[in-house]
Every structure is written in structure tokens, then in C-alpha cells.
């Protein structure tokens, strides 16, 4: 089946089998290997990408399901050496060790900060509860996300009129 997917703002077309999973389309067909392929059972979240702006586990989505839709991968959230605030946060606050979970963590956190610019620690923990990390114990990841939220959010709490 011929599909057309808007990947990181660019229209990409390919002939795929219906059973091809989105994670393999991204990695193998498009060569975007920043999205990691982990547990293959929708548990670990290493394969998290945005489908129409929402974070989803791409090992459990068919590539054909994305036909005509928008997909954003870790390659799409910054350009070259200009890291996004979250990427900077993970660097400054040591949010990664082996790095395997990091692209998925950052995609999930990017969606979180878009909907909740100043999340509480509980909100961060809940948001990343579908992304597993076996190195950091999560504390440094939470600090990394908090760092990015501090940079990106207004210094004063806005009060509704």
C-alpha cells in the first residue's frame, strides 16, 4: 500500500506492507534512527513519537494508520546543534546515562510541557509513567524536565482575571 506521511514537517511517501509497524517505517524505511525500538510490547516507551501532536508508542501503531497524518520524531524537535530546552535540560541535569530511553522521554516530556508548561513533580511522574528508564532512577529525568519548564515558563504565576 502506498502511504504519504508528514514526518517532521516533510512529506514522505513509500510503498509499505499493511503489517509494517510505524517504528520500523521511521527507522528502516526513512532512516530516522533517533526513535528507538525497545520492548516491542507497548511497555517501555522508547519508541515514543508524536502522531498528530500526541505522544504514542510507535511499536503498536501500524505505519498505514499514519497515512495522511503528521508524525514528529526526536529529529524533528530541534535543528542541528540548536537543542530544544528539554534536550538542554537532559544535558545540564544529567537526565540520561545509557541514552536508550532518552528520545522517548523527551518526546513525552515535550508533549507534557506543551499542555502543562509548569507541571508539578507528580504531574511529571504521571506523564512519564509509560516510559521506562533502567539507569537514572528517574530523579535526574524529573529534574531535567523541571529545568526546561523553568526556562520556558513565565517567572510569575499568571492569575486568571
Amino acid at each position: 500500500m502506498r502511504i504519504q506521511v508528514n514526518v517532521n514537517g516533510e512529506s514522505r511517501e513509500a510503498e509499505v506492507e499493511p503489517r509494517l509497524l510505524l517504528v520500523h517505517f521511521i527507522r528502516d524505511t526513512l532512516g530516522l534512527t533517533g526513535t528507538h525500538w525497545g520492548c516491542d510490547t507497548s511497555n517501555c516507551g522508547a519508541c515514543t513519537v508524536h502522531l498528530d501532536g500526541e505522544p504514542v508508542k510507535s511499536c503498536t501503531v501500524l505505519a498505514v494508520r499514519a497515512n495522511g497524518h503528521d508524525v514528529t520524531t526526536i529529529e524533528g524537535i530541534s535543528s542541528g546543534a540548536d537543542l530544544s530546552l528539554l534536550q538542554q535540560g537532559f544535558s545540564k541535569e544529567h537526565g540520561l546515562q545509557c541514552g536508550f530511553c532518552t528520545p522517548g522521554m523527551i518526546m513525552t516530556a515535550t508533549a507534557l510541557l506543551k499542555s502543562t508548561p509548569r507541571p508539578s513533580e507528580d504531574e511529571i511522574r504521571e506523564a512519564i509513567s509509560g516510559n521506562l528508564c533502567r539507569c537514572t532512577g528517574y530523579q535526574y529525568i524529573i529534574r531535567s524536565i523541571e529545568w526546561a519548564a523553568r526556562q520556558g515558563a513565565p517567572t510569575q504565576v499568571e492569575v486568571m482575571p
Partner: protein
Amino acid sequence: MQVPAQFEYEVAGSVDEAIGLLKRYGPESRLLAGGHSLIPMMKLRLAFPEVLIDIHELDGDLRYVREEDGALRVGALARHRDLLESPVVQERYTLLADAEKFIADPLVRNMGTVGGSFAHADPSEDLPAAFIALGSEVLARGPRGERTIAVEDLAVGPFETALEPDEILIEARVPSAPQGSSYFKVERRAGDYASAALGVALWMSGDEIEEARIGMCSVGSTTLRARGAEEVLEGQRPDGELYRRAAERAAEECDPPDDARGTPEYKRDLVRVLLVRALEQAVDRGAP
């Protein structure tokens, strides 16, 4: 690498088209909604449909959570997240939000659908148990028209429903909001299926329980309604001794499997403990 076996793929542009495709391809075809139960089962070759009929383009018709004339209507393509974040659900159908907090994780809840959790008919699925407790029915549509099915009658066995192969779920309906409701679950890991879980909803008349509904999951070959425990409660004033009698009855009504999530005795004991807690919370929430 886990990849599903080969299948044909169709996209339905309308509910009628989906029904037409189900009719054309027959029992070896399956609807694909969020796919977060079906695709993992296809990867493991526990399911191998010959045709998948993708209904995600029907969001415009089937993705909604709204209260109309005192009844809650939840479209089959409403995502788990839609239920969890709905203000009317949080306020008036609280046990649905309670249950949703336990279901998988936020990423899965972005894709998984309410209709999918009914049609999949996993005996460990939380939502059917929660909807049973709310006295709900589902609306199904097929070539012969529409019909409603009580949620407790929808699953007829593990992963098996009363739906005909050419019927599609349209929505779940809760006829009236209870005064108080609550859902409790024990899971071995965050986001896992339950060792045992149950929901209770109470419709009060003054300080008496006029109607009680209880739904349970992971403690039988389908999600279950605890009718005997409901009878213990109805017409009575809430108190601890009553809760314990109802819980004892509910534990007798279930038939938990012996599996990695626990022994039948352990799960029955969970039912005893969880129903008392759920009743206490439902009564607290319903107190004027």
C-alpha cells in the same frame, strides 16, 4: 522482532461503510480502533485476522463524552484519556475516572478506545467492570439495525462477545448518575492488569441505598456483575457490618483464575477488602 502476520487493510470512511466491509469480509475480519490490545495479540499470533478494517477516521462520529438528559453517552472511539479528563466524568461518574487512572499509562491512553476495551472482552479489562457498576448498556449497529446490550451481557467468554461479526459498537450509555461511586484495583505493577478490581455505584433514597451496582474484573472468565452483593445492599442503610456482608457475598460470586497475578484465594480476599473500601468511599462521596 515481533510483527503481525499478513492481513488485508481497509479504511472505513463512515459507520455504514465499516458495517458493509464487515459484512463483505465476514468473521475473519476485525475492526481496528486504537489497536493497543489487538496489535500486541497479532504480534504474538494470539489473533490473526485476515482483514483489518481501520475505523480511526470515524472520530468525528464516534469520539465524544457528553451528558444529555441526565444520561452519559460515551462514543466508541472516545480515548481512555478523554474519559479521564472529562469534567462531567470526574464530577458525576467518578468511578470511571478512578478506573482510568489505573489503565496502562498516558501514552497508551492516548490511543486506546472505550469501544475497543468492550469489544476486546478481556476478562481483566477495567472499563467494562466500571461501566457494569454504572448500570450501563452499549449500542451496537449492524446491517439489521441497532440494538442495545447490557454491559454485563456483552462478554460471553474470554475475548468473546455477544456482538455479531458484522456489528460495530457505537456508544456506551449510563442512564443516570449515581450519588456516589468508587473503583479500587490491586495491580502487581503500575499500569498492569488487575489481580482483582471492582467498581461500585450507589443510587440513594434518603439515607437508604435504593440501588447498588457492582462490577468486577480479573476474577472470572468475563467481567462480572455481583448481583448477590447488590441485593445485600439494596434497601439498607450504609454501615460497616452491611459492607462486610456484601463483600463476603461478592467473594462467593466470583471465580478467579489461578495465574501469575495470584491464587484464587488471594483474589477472593482482595474482593472482600476492596468492596468494603469502595463502598466506604462511594458513600462518603455521595453524602450530602
